[in-house]
Structures are given as C-alpha cells and as structure tokens.
C-alpha cells in the first residue's frame, strides 16, 4: 500500500491566474491537474461574482512529495503576496502510482 501514497495538493485562487498557474505547475513537474470553478471568502474578501475578475478556481494536483513541496515553495514565493490564494496538502492512495 505504501508505494501507492501520493500527495493531493489543492490550490484555491483567482480565476485570472489559471493560465499562468497551469504553466508553472507543468514546469514544476505535475503530470496533470484538475480544475473546478468555485466561489468563496477569505482574507481578501468575498469572491463570488458572475464576473471573472471576482471568481475563483479550485485546482487539484496529485503528485509525489517532492513535487508537492516544490510547487508549494514556488507558489509561496511568486503568488502569495499578490493573489488571493490558499493551498493545502493531504495524503491520498492512488491506483497507478507511476502516473503521478
């Protein structure tokens, strides 16, 4: 079972950065990602309009621990100061571990 353990990284941030973020994720070694549209509230206030400037995305990346750490570091350095963003990591068991 242990060899099947990976990290699930969930990033919630502004819809406006989707393109940029996706490019960075791939550069940092993510083999895939999944995005859903979201709304919410955090330290930067309510983000929930019909309107792109105020809507969120929820990005999930399943990856190994090293990649998760390097993505986390990168986002902290390049995104956190300027964008509404939160990030959290959980342990998940996957089926074809070679994929991630």
């Amino acid at each position, binding site marked *: 079972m242990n060899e099947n353990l990976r990290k699930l990284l969930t990033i919630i941030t502004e819809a406006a950065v989707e393109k940029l973020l996706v490019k960075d994720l791939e550069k940092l070694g993510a083999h895939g990602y999944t995005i859903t549209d979201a709304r919410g509230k955090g330290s930067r206030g309510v983000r929930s309009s*019909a*309107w*792109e*400037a105020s809507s969120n995305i929820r990005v999930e990346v399943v990856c190994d621990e090293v990649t998760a750490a390097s993505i986390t570091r990168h986002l902290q350095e390049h995104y956190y100061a*300027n964008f509404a963003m939160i990030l959290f990591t959980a342990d998940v068991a996957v089926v074809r571990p070679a994929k991630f």
Partner: protein
Amino acid sequence: MNIDPVILFFLLGIAAGLLRSELRLPAAVYELVSMILLLSIGMKGGIELARQPLEAMLPQILAVLLLGSLLPFVAFPVLRFVGRLPRADAASIAAHYGSVSVGTYAVGAAWLADQGISFEAQMPLLLVMMEIPAILIGILMARGFRSDLRLSLVAHEVFLGKGVVLLIGGLLIGWIAGPSGIVSIEPLFFDLFKGVLALFLLEMGLITAVQIGGLRHYGVFLVVFGIGMPLLSAVCGALVGVWLGFSEGGVTLLAILAASASYIAVPAAMRVSVPEANPALSLAASLGVTFPFNVLIGIPLYHSLAIRLGA
C-alpha cells in the same frame, strides 16, 4: 424627462445589489450578453469600414492611439502624489482610465441614437484602437523596462483577450460581409441589441453595487478622482474630436470614450502583468464611481460640451 429603459435596468441592478437581493446573472449569461454586444459593436464598425477608404482614417487612428497613451500620464502623477498610492496601484488605475469601456460606449451610442444624433461610422474602430495603448503604458509605468517583463505574455493578454478578439473579429466580419451580407444575422445582433444591453447593464448594476460597498475602505480621494478624471478626459477627447473635424455626435462619443474607464480588458491584463496592484482599488474607482457617473450623468454633459465646443 425620458429615461432610457437600459438605464433603468442599471438602476435596478444597483438597487437589487445594495438591498442584497439574491438576484444575479449566471456567469454564462453574462458572457453571452457581453459577446453579443462586442460582436455587434464590432460589426457595426466593420460595415461602415466597407464603405470608406481606410487611408482617410489613419490620422484619426493615430490621434486616438496618442490620446489613449497620454491620458495615463495625466492620471498617474495625480494618483501617485495627490492620492499617495503605491506606484503599482497608480500605474494600474492610470491604465484603466487611459483605456475605454465598451459598456459606456454602448450606452452613449444608444443615447445619441435616441436623440436622433448621428455619429461617424468608424467609432467602433477607434474604440478598439483606444483600448490597447494605455495597457502597455500602464505596465511600463509599473515595472519599467525590466528584463522579466515577459512581453510576449503581455501582448498575448492584450491582443488575444476575449474582448479585443470579439471586437476586432466583429469588425472584420462586418467589413468582409458588408451591409448586405450581414442582413441575415441582424435579428440577433442588431434588433436585440438594446434588450441585450439592458441585461448587461442589470449585471453591471449588481457588480457596481458590490464596488460601491468597497469604496468605504478607500476614502474620498478615489471618489473625487473617479469623477474628476473622466471630466478632464472628456475635455481632451472632445478637443481631439473637434480637431479631427468630427460631427456633434462624433465629438460626443470621443469624449465619452476618453472619459470611460476600462473594467474588462485592463483588469485582466493588469492582474497578470502587474500583480502587485490591488484590483479592488482600480475596480472600486472605475466601476463604483466612474461607470455610474458616466452612464447616469456624464453622457448628456459631454454632449453639451461637444455643442459648446462648436461641434
């Protein structure tokens, strides 16, 4: 007085928003409605392009490119030194006010049509031209000519954003198809225009109400700037219009374009290119103050200005 119903939709949106009603347009509907407006405005311009020699418009295009590039230089020092805003914020807001708002243009054009005042057919083309230079100026103001400017990314964001693609796409379609070719799609893009504009303004009202709420945090300077800047820009725009020999309607529309502040193309570009600028600030000004001011008060004002300037 006779109020255009589209303005009433805007007021309904503001009222519903301030009263915290549950009313909101689904994102998909807002996008559909914007798409139809942008394509329609573009096509209207393109149809007229088909009728005119392009060269005759080159001086006009140059004039509005210049106008759009210079307005940020008026706004920036005020924001930076009177408003004491950080450099990135001042640059970003300056870009918003140098660029234009398609919604304001649509309301202005509809108002002129209602008054039976005609205007130069190439205005949508000038609108497209004026949308872009301020963005580049704003980015340079914020970041200088630094090495990490990712210029290709900026250019992509600016020229391939939804709004510009639909406006220019509509322009080309109208140009190639010409007035007779476009007849078959008029029922959707032209006959429904005012109704679609009404729905658009309903949502703009809801968005504006949110921005008005945010104004409190930023104090009185932003409100004064949000009214003063468009008044000043309108004068510049009107003068350029007179200088270009435009008609009464054309001068008015150029004043409206100059006075309007972007809230679609520029925020998207700034978010990516000048991320340290706080988007809440520029949107509070452009949507919370300037858009309603222009739509409710400015347009007739700029028209009298045009008349006074002898247009």
